């Protein structure tokens, strides 16, 4: 994919379309994991692609080109969530992290689980698990404290566990 960069820097529309066709479905998946629905995910992805093409000169070929595009996608989604923010990142000092459970997710839709999480939990969970951000980086990007990030992540995992158990119980009853 890096081979497209010189042509992209010339703002070649044909090459831009080629890049779009190569990565758009994957990037839509990334955006979908942050936003509540596919329509908003596509909006965010298109806005992010505009930024990619406009700011292609700032790409210095240091990291992977796909990783650079992905970061722009994630940032666009975070901006979208900030604009439509209806939640507060709470910090609980008495929060204890739940013990991890060794359940496999076979038969479970990961996106469905993410969608059923509260938005603040989902964002922190995605940044930590999918983007592999540290809690410090999450705190900086969301402008929250590091402990708040940890709390949200722990709560997200607890909620996810509850959802998995609920689904398993429903499946067993059936």
């Amino acid at each position: 994919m890096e081979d497209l960069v010189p042509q992209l820097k010339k703002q070649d529309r044909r090459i831009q379309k080629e890049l779009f066709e190569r990565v758009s479905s994957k990037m839509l998946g990334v955006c979908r994991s942050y936003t509540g629905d596919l329509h908003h995910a596509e909006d965010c992805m298109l806005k992010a692609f505009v930024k990619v093409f406009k700011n292609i000169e700032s790409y210095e070929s240091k990291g992977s080109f796909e990783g650079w595009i992905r970061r722009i996608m994630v940032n666009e989604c975070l901006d979208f969530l900030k604009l439509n923010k209806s939640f507060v990142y709470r910090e609980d000092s008495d929060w204890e992290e739940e013990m991890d459970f060794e359940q496999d997710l076979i038969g479970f839709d990961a996106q469905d689980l993410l969608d059923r999480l509260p938005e603040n939990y989902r964002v922190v969970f995605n940044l930590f698990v999918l983007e592999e951000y540290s809690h410090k980086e999450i705190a900086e990007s969301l402008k929250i404290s590091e402990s708040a990030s940890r709390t949200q992540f722990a709560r997200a995992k607890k909620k996810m566990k509850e959802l998995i158990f609920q689904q398993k119980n429903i499946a067993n009853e059936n």
Partner: protein
Amino acid sequence: MKTNLEKNIKEQIERRKLEVSDNAWDKLTQMMDEKPSSEKGRGGESSFAKRKLWIPVSVAASILFFFTIYLLNSNENEESIHPTNQNTEIVTNQTTVEELNENTTSETMEIVETKKEVFIHQKTELNTEKTNSKEILVKSEERKVSPKPVELSPILEQIIENTMENPKMKEQKTELALQPKLDSESNQKKNYVDPEMLLYSIENNQAVKQNNSDSRMVIIDFNK
């Protein structure tokens, strides 16, 4: 360290590919074409705003410029007024002395003029913001009569009296009296009596006769 749950979710999400809508590329090209025009519009507004900002700035700058020119002109005027007055005084004094010199030469009187330079520090206060102190050179002229005995004619006496009574000379003396050092010197000069002249007058007292009882001037007849 990642848990099973985290790993499973990550794998599922990474593997997933979602189909974009058919007109997604058209939407994107439309957005890319719209952006530059909207940026241009914003640029136009900003340039207009900049132009609007330049108007009060340029007005303020021009006011400041004219005010500075006015101040400079007023300073120059004040500077030019004082020196011309002093020059006139000096010239007048010099003319008087020259006239005196002409008269005294005809009477074979030798007048030794020693010019003494006196610095008068004149502080000219221009305005509340700016104060200039200037040093103006004023030539004060002092006459000394040589010890050679000469007979002063009544005309010469009158000239000397007039010169002494000259208001400008008095003014000059007043100015000099402002400075304590000069004050003592001028007092000494007033009462100055040439010892040689005094000795000559004592030795030849017959040749010296008083003109008037009120006057301090004496007539010396060198023929006697």
